């Protein structure tokens, strides 16, 4: 009788462990950004691409419109693919667009903007990638939508596509 109880207990335990592991297998393994609102670190300072002047990122954020921070590089092909969306956003909507040039050759990045057009209101330089880590980025391209309280309300990892573009427009119109 006692042996039976132990047997059933062990079987139930094994089945429970099996289901826990099964759930673990189905869980998303890739890193996905947290959805809760995070305030931007106000001590992040970067150099401006053209003047080389040090600027605090927070000083560039506007309180009367949405801010979009886009991390990009001239060597990054997906950045080229999302570039037309950024140009459209800048031309058609009231949005403060800040570009952060990631680990790039400055001449190449200037050429990239002169060839494809400059959608940014300000372009900053993160030459060693540490500032992007402070922002919570994992690579390029990455785009953050920031509200008037300097909080990140949406993160887009990877190049912006049509869905993301429409998503941003809806948030601007809100």
């Amino acid at each position, binding site marked *: 009788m006692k042996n039976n109880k*132990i047997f059933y207990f062990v079987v139930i335990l094994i089945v429970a*462990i099996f289901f826990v592991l099964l759930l673990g297998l189905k869980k998303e393994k*890739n890193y996905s950004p947290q959805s809760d609102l995070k305030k931007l670190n106000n001590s992040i300072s970067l150099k401006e691409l053209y003047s080389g002047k040090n600027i605090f990122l927070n000083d560039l954020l506007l309180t009367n419109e949405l801010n979009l921070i886009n991390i990009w590089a001239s060597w990054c092909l997906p950045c080229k693919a999302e570039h037309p969306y950024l140009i459209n956003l800048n031309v058609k909507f009231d949005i403060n667009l800040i570009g952060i040039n990631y680990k790039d050759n400055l001449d190449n990045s200037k050429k990239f903007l002169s060839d494809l057009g400059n959608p940014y209101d300000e372009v900053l330089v993160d030459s*060693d*990638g540490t500032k*992007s880590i402070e922002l919570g980025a994992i690579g390029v391209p990455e785009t953050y939508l920031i509200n008037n309280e300097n909080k990140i309300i949406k993160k887009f990892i990877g190049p912006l596509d049509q869905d993301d573009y429409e998503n941003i427009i809806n948030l601007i119109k809100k």
Partner: protein
Amino acid sequence: MKKISLTVLILIIITLYSSISFADKKKNIDHITKNLRCLICQGQSVYDSQSDFALSMKKLIRIKIKEGNTEDEIYNFLKEKYGEWVVYEPEVNKNTIFLWGLPLILFIFGGLLIIRKVSIK
């Protein structure tokens, strides 16, 4: 003569001290980066990875240590940016209590079984 030997002694002490503190810092950076997950290269720590992300992370940790941040402060800073997932050793909280508790439960249960078997004999 005494002055020269004293100067040499001081120089040796300074060199030894700086090399020991450099080694300590290096050990500290290695220890921290081994406990951080490289978020773009599955299965590798920041220490193991040579990806752009990991290299920038190592550089930032070096800067943070230089600024006087402690190991815990660095983990907390990165957890705030990337979530609990960035650290290999998860904290004990309501989501991880089963993970931490199960081995202990199994250990106690197994121990009790062995004690009972032995006492019956």
